């Protein structure tokens, strides 16, 4: 049912698709962001820090809860495992110890899946956290790389490219040292390919972090 819009043809150079982000678009959550990357679109709403259920309370740090809602049907095991990855990524970045005995709830709604969904979710989450004003030790971004049969790297693949790829690797990269926060792979690849993808992702991360910075700049420029 996909009607993917054509990508600009940029020759063979790997490229990120168009990125568009709107922050604070929802009135109820403490922080929200809509992230559109190519045709993939994700909405995130964040509540917190707020009161926490006694059963989930952690005495020395905030309790994170991540909910990933698929567009069709109910969340299943797949969503649960992605939730866990995003949650642990956030836990590593957000300074949870500043908000002990409280909860931070992140709700991610998939709006359109047209490839690189996990990395879009990560990016949306980061922008949402920024909008919610939660203290973080660094920013993070998600980058997806697809490897085709010849071992060529495609950054930020669209759905069709993802399906044709031999392997799809998704990394979360932090902004402080460009290290790997999270990694998830689909398909199998060689060690060399993995290292190349990591290096490529780190390059792409620069662009995304610049986007974060420009977007924050714009947001606060007219005050």
């Amino acid at each position: 049912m996909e009607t993917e819009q054509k990508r600009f043809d940029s020759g063979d150079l790997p490229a990120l698709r168009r990125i568009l982000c709107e922050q604070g678009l929802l009135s109820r959550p403490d922080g929200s962001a809509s992230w559109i990357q190519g045709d993939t679109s994700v909405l995130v709403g964040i509540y917190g820090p707020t009161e926490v259920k006694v059963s989930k309370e952690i005495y020395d740090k905030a309790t994170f809860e991540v909910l990933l809602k698929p567009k069709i049907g109910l969340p299943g095991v797949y969503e649960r495992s992605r939730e866990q990855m995003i949650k642990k990524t956030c836990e590593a970045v957000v300074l949870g110890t500043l908000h002990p005995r409280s909860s931070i709830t992140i709700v991610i709604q998939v709006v359109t899946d047209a490839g690189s969904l996990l990395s879009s979710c990560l990016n949306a989450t980061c922008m949402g956290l920024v909008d919610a004003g939660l203290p973080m030790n660094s920013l993070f971004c998600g980058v997806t790389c697809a490897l085709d049969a010849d071992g060529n790297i495609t950054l930020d693949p669209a759905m069709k490219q993802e399906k044709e790829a031999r392997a799809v690797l998704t990394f979360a990269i932090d902004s402080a040292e460009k290290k790997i926060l999270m990694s998830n792979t689909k398909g199998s690849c060689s060690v060399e390919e993995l290292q190349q993808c990591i290096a490529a992702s780190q390059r792409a991360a620069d662009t995304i972090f610049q986007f974060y910075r420009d977007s924050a700049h714009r947001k606060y420029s007219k005050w």
Partner: protein
Amino acid sequence: MAAAGGFRTVEPLEYYRRFLKENCRPDGRELGEFRTTTVNVGSITTADGSALVKLGNTTVICGIKAEFAVPPVDSSNKGYIVPNVDLPLLCSSRFRPGPPGEEAQAASQFMADVIENSQVVMKEDLCIVDGKLAWVLYCDMICLDYDGNLLDACMCAFLAALKNVQLPAVSINEETGLAEVNLKEKTPLTIRKEPVAASFILFDSLLIVDPTAEEEDLATGTVTIVTDEEGKLCAVHKPGGSTLTGAKLQDCISRAVTRHKEVKKLLDKLIKSKKAK
């Protein structure tokens, strides 16, 4: 000793760091050392394939049951592999009774991902009649004793059980159109790849292999690498946690490759011993 026990309870992090300073761990292992791995196959006779794996105290039993089903609509020449990890109350008091919790679900999905990524068994091999009949392999992994590094144990139990599977011969009766099963004629599965997992924890920028439950609780992150016999990566699974450089990851991979060889040797010997008798 009593004093040390108290220290361990009150300041678990500091207690652990003292050991690491001496390049060893509270249970006497080195940082890169796996616990004793014991594998037993075929002990559950009600299952079509089974294996019990012990990794130190961590114990996982995997039973595989094969059943018939109609192939999925969108790929009529494929069977199913349904992996599920169960963490019952029995294995650790940290889990609640009832339906699988978050960790069990994440582990189930990880297993499903690895099976898909590595193509350990081609789903096409499980098809009996195109569009009509296929095998479903229900692979249920139950943790009996939870002392860390669940994924490695599950992976190993799964692979060993898979190698132990014997499927009966099936023919289609021309008259009735129904399947007929011959239990006397059994064949093993064709196993295409042999994925083996190696898990690490990140602790103060150190990489520690095969963590116990206690170590996992203290760690700031985990990494699981799954490799196949060609040294290809079937999964580089790092669900968040502390950051890691590419170079560090490379160290993990090297250790995982060695681990793969060890486990493969173990399983080969095991299967051979089963066949020999």
